[in-house]
């Protein structure tokens, strides 16, 4: 078992994909000669060549559309969209085509397309480069959305994504590429639709995904100083969503706060919160809380940006408001 960073875990998954299946190929802006905007495909161009690691023009709609077509034609395309902010240009291809072709063709077509993309803020990239849209895509039936929070999950979820016969949005948080974690050498997978209890506790359940799992972990440490034990749940895939694990935890702790980075208004976490409220009402000691990003375009200023993104203190503040903790 070796400690590696998340960038390396994803690169390992990509290499496995290209080695194992000759139908698999990568395409995206700067994935080839430039070796990846986030250096995930470093060395790929030399090893696999321009046919399988294809540089594309700056045209996200075309890239996703070509990916959909290639997947329909029996290839295993992995499209890298430099950031999820740019995926808005390909959203028609995702929502109206990739998501629906199986349904509209009565199962005759399938779209085993993986869209790898980078999500989240915190790197002072300003309003148009700091958003978290994975929840938008997770609201579309037909799409699966995975969002790892550590190297182990990144590799395990990516292996599961390769097995999928339906389009997968694989959202990697920009600030987690350097996050270190243990990854076994032996083969393993992290199945879709299985949330992980990343920390056990009996007093409050904190539900999060992506980088917010770490914010929840930090909050749990602060709770521990107050003598309270927080349970941290990483949902890992937004769709399929593993509500059972969350509800089981809430029945134990009686309190729940969902933490996510996207704007608080209409966030996917609101849907999780509502589902928990419905499933565990009689076990709740107060309303299900939801902590999200402030409803402002991401500020460029570092101090302001940090203030707009949820942190452990805001989670504690919410717990105090709702539960008097």
């Amino acid at each position, binding site marked *: 078992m070796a400690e590696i960073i998340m960038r390396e875990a994803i690169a390992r998954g990509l290499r496995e994909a290209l080695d194992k299946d000759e139908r698999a190929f990568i395409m995206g802006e700067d994935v080839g000669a430039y070796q990846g905007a986030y250096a995930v495909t470093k060395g790929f161009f030399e090893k696999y060549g321009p046919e399988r690691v294809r540089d594309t023009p700056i045209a996200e709609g075309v890239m996703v559309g070509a990916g959909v077509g290639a997947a329909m034609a029996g290839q295993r395309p992995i499209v890298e969209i430099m950031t999820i902010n740019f995926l808005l240009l390909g959203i028609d291809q995702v929502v109206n085509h990739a998501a629906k072709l199986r349904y509209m063709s009565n199962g005759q077509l399938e779209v085993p397309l993986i869209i790898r993309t980078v999500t989240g803020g915190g790197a002072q990239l300003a309003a148009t480069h700091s958003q978290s849209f994975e929840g938008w895509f997770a609201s579309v039936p037909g799409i699966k959305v995975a969002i790892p929070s550590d190297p182990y999950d990144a590799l395990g979820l990516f292996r599961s994504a390769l097995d999928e016969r339906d389009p997968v949005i694989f959202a990697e948080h920009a600030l987690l590429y350097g996050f270190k974690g243990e990854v076994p050498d032996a083969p393993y997978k992290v199945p879709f639709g299985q949330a992980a209890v990343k920390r056990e506790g009996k007093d409050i359940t904190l539900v999060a995904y992506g980088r917010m799992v770490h914010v929840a972990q930090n909050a749990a440490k602060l709770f521990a100083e107050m003598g309270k034990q927080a349970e941290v749940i990483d949902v890992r895939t937004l769709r399929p969503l593993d509500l059972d694990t969350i509800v089981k935890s809430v029945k134990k702790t*009686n309190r729940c706060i969902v933490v996510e980075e996207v704007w608080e208004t209409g966030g996917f976490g609101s849907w999780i919160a509502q589902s928990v409220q419905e499933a565990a009402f009689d*076990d709740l000691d*107060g309303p299900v809380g939801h902590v999200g990003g402030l409803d402002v375009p991401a500020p460029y200023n570092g101090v302001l940006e940090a203030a707009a993104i949820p942190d452990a203190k805001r989670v504690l503040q919410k717990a105090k408001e709702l539960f008097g903790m």
Partner: protein
Amino acid sequence: MATELTMPQMGYDMQEGTLVRWLKREGAEVKVGDAIAEIETDKAVVEFEASEAGVLNKLLVAEGTSVPVGKPIAIIGAPGEKVTAPAAAPAPAPAANGKGAPASSPKRPPEAVEARQEPVTAPAPADDHAAAPGEVRASPVARKLADEMGIDLSKIKGTGPGGRITRDDVMAADKSKAAKTETKAEPQKPAEATARLAAPAPAAPKKEAPAAEHAPAPAAKPGEKVPLSKMRQQIARVTTKSKQEIPHFYVTAEIDMTEAMKLRKQINASLESEGIKISVNDLIIKACVGALRKIPNLNSSYTGDAIQNHPSINIGIAIAMEDGLIMPAIMDCAGKTLAQISQASKDLITRAQKGTLHAQEYTGGTFSISNMGMFEVTNFAAIIQPPQAGVLAVGTVMKKPVVRNDQVVIAETMNATLSVDHRVSDGAEGAKFIVEVKKDLENPLSLLV
């Protein structure tokens, strides 16, 4: 020792009943079986009988009040006994006759919080979210825990936001309660006697229509919308549930009734002096009882994980009422002679029209017969009355040319269609049943032995 009498379930799917009139006063001595109140169900007004002997210590609800099934309506105790355990009486609603409900206890009973969660369905203030004075604010889990631990939430001080009682407050109260040596008397359990009435578990009492809907529906004018009567609502509910949940299949046979009609004439002629008159339906009931004894599987209920065979054969008969229909049952038909069945059937019809049926007769049916013979219909299929497994629909007996020994002759025939719950039985068994009925009716002497 005092016992609570609770609102019985007097019909499949009955969720509440209205206490129309008390027939005994507080303090009156009652024997088991004494009628103590009149209760209006979805179908009719029925007498409520005491299931215990003793003194009526307290009447907990006012006349005219609607009470959910299972809620206490009166306390019966030994003569002179004081009522110590306050009962979880539903909050008295304004009575139609202006008489208030007897005050149950000056002190707020421990279950008061619970009672508030299920508002009484009688005419009540429109906004049940409005906080009552002195309302207890507690989280859902705090309420659940307090309920499980038997803790009175009104005695706990909440430490949560806005004074909300939280899980931890209840846990702390439980600890301090355990520390105290004095224990309180347990609240009385609802009377066991009502258990016998327990048909399939009713859904949690739902909000029902206000009392105004008890009024008979006015005659419909063209284009007019007529609100559903209670009975119509009930029929709509039960038949919809039956058709949605029970996979019905149907088996039809033509039965030659010539011999049965002859026999009936003979019997009626000979018994005229005794005032007994056998109807065609009585013959059909008797034939069905015989068939059910041979094929007991059809005298059963599907319970989800098993088939519950019933120990007695109770034949429900569909009785058309002014604004709907009811299906009370003749209890324990297996041991009854044709004459006894005939009498029981007449008695049932008379009492159905007077509204003095017993609760058990509403719920206890195990198989039913629906007869439309009087309407000159040849065929129809009936909807099974849950939780029964079958119903036989019979049409008119009419003269018809039939082939007997290769000769066309005139015979009196009748069509019968059996509806069966496919979860309980299959086509072959249904066919076997209807053939048994046919055999008995075509050789009617067998019905007499």
